[in-house]
């Protein structure tokens, strides 16, 4: 070991003693990493779970053929689910509602909040297309009764109807409802509800694991100085801070 690295290590140890942190060199850490057992088939499952939950049907099918990994859900149901998601994302809420009921009528029955949000989206689309009369009728007949049952529904309904009060919607305080992000939010909610009804977790596991990595490193930082991964997309190990 060159003199340079010896000095670096000593500096690290002095620093660590000051803060009473354990110092782990890159060599020691790489040995620990090597001892970890990660099975290829488990990684394949993780990737398949991502493809399936996010709705990449064709990719999931190809992955099944190329890797021999079985999807944890029937691929046919993904196509249906994606059709619903896409309908909401394109603003065709009526179509989406029909499709959800075809898939499983219980989903909307057991999910009043989801149903309200879909109806709300319908209202937003009517307002967006300038169909003022239809929008008001719809709000009064379909949404107001729901608003009476539930305070937060009422507040959201009032916010939505407020859109009608403004000529220039791009500058009004509730303008964000017309943003595409609102459609995406609703689409995501529907997607999650369908997955849950199929007894599948609504979120892919991979992002949680990445968050867990960030969390685990932050926790370990309190007690040790060790090589960290700061860039998830490259997984490069950075030398421990000196």
């Amino acid at each position, binding site marked *: 070991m060159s003199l340079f690295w010896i000095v670096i290590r000593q500096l690290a140890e002095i620093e660590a003693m000051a803060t009473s942190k354990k110092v782990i060199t890159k060599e020691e850490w790489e040995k620990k990493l090597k001892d970890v057992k*990660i099975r290829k088939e488990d990684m394949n499952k993780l990737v398949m779970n991502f493809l399936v939950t996010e709705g990449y049907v064709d990719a999931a099918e190809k992955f099944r053929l190329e890797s021999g990994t079985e999807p944890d859900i029937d691929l046919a149901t993904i196509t249906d689910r994606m059709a619903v998601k896409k309908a909401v994302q394109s603003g065709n809420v009526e179509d989406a509602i029909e499709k959800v009921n075809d898939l499983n009528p219980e989903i909307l029955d057991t999910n009043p909040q989801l149903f309200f949000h879909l109806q709300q989206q319908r209202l937003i689309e009517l307002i967006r297309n300038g169909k003022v009369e239809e929008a008001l009728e719809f709000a009064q007949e379909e949404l107001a009764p729901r608003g009476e049952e539930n305070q937060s529904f009422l507040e959201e309904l009032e916010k939505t109807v407020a859109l009608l009060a403004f000529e220039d919607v791009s500058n009004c305080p509730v303008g964000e409802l017309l943003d595409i992000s609102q459609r995406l939010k609703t689409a995501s909610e529907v997607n999650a509800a369908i997955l849950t009804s199929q007894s599948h977790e609504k979120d892919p596991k991979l992002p949680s*694991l990445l968050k867990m990595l960030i969390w685990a490193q932050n926790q370990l930082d309190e007690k040790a100085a060790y090589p960290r991964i700061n860039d998830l*997309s490259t997984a490069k190990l950075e030398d421990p801070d000196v």
Partner: protein
Amino acid sequence: MTNNNSGSKNEEEVEVGSYFLEVARGAHKKKEEEMAEDTEDEESPTELNTINSSGGFLVVSTDKISVKYPSVNLHGHDVGVVQANKPAPVKRLVYYFEIYVKDSGAKGQIAIGFTPDNFKMRRQPGWEPHSCGYHGDDGLLYHGQGKGEAFGPTYTANDTVGAGINYASHEFFFTKNGAVVGTVYNDMKGSLFPTIAVHSQNEEVHVNFGQKPFAFDLEDFEKQERMKQQMTVEKISLPLNVSHGIVRSYLLHYGYEETLNSFDMASKSTVPPVHIAQENGFDEQDIMYALNERKTLRQLIKNGEIDAALSKLHDWYPQIVQDDKSATCFLLHCQKFIELVRVGALEEAVKYGRIQLAKFFGLAGFEDFVQDCVALLAYEQPRESSVGYLLEDSQREVVADAVNAMILSLNPNLKDSHGCLQSCLEKLLRQLTACCLERRSLNGDQGEAFYLHRVLNIGKKC
């Protein structure tokens, strides 16, 4: 392709080959490891310790799971205390055990708690430093001194009382008839033994170390604790589309070309479209290399068509199969042998083994694996034997991954020679596991570690 730096290239080839040889050899330990993961190599209490109990004062049943206090007690130093035969295991989220009070005797002076190794076995748990006990006669918690603090209800005959250690929150907790009555901070270091005590005439207590179902829903409790941690973790934010990028680089790394093409196409039409900026750090040049060839070879190997794979390698990458004694060639020849055994062509397998495998006997690093392969011949039902693991698909996968990595290592633009061994995802998962293990180890080894296999299967249960 010109071979500029033949010296270092050979080193890399050797490194890649031997890396996967290790993986292949490690496979037969899989089952044992799965077991070790579950129990973490830790023993659990199963019965009461009759050797160090306060012999004169209490009587332990022959099955060692119940105690009685036969005589009349006289003072504070004739408590009948008994510990479990093993200390509470620590490498888990929670440890828990229960007692059932069969008879509360004259005064109901029963206690449940935790005590250290050298505890004075004539004192109630909690009355001495570094011990804790929940007492039935007064419902108080004793935590290292003779005076207790208000804690929970009293308990008596026909009550089921439990005591547990929550390693996530560093707390002791106690239950009565299935409901938690209270918690107290656990600052006690060192091994802790589940302990029960009886102190008045005719008291009788039965203990349950998990051999029978608990009155308390421990599984649900653990689930709630895990969810608490999960909720903290979920709040962390990730860079945009990072998961998408990692999946993509995984597909590229291992050569899943068709999947990658479908994935890319679908990504263009998602709302909003996923756009991976080059600055995200994905070195595409490195892993786009020879994508089609790698895909083809993987398919051949996954189908067991080793001869075809070898032939293609001769055509495309002769340098990989040049040295017949290299780890890569070894893995390919072994796989061919395994495929012959799989279809029952035993005579052909023997012939092949003589030509291609015999030379590896006596070579350190290759010997045990080749022995396992040849051992397949000894069994009528090789799949069920101890070397049956060789016939699993995962074995073909290792060979396919080895060939894949060898080809990647030939990339003239390769910046990082280690990059071809592990995908980005693998590196991240290893780091996650190592960090969790290190953190636990710095914490007195208490708590759960991270195991990918376990996480993937938790989802299956629900």
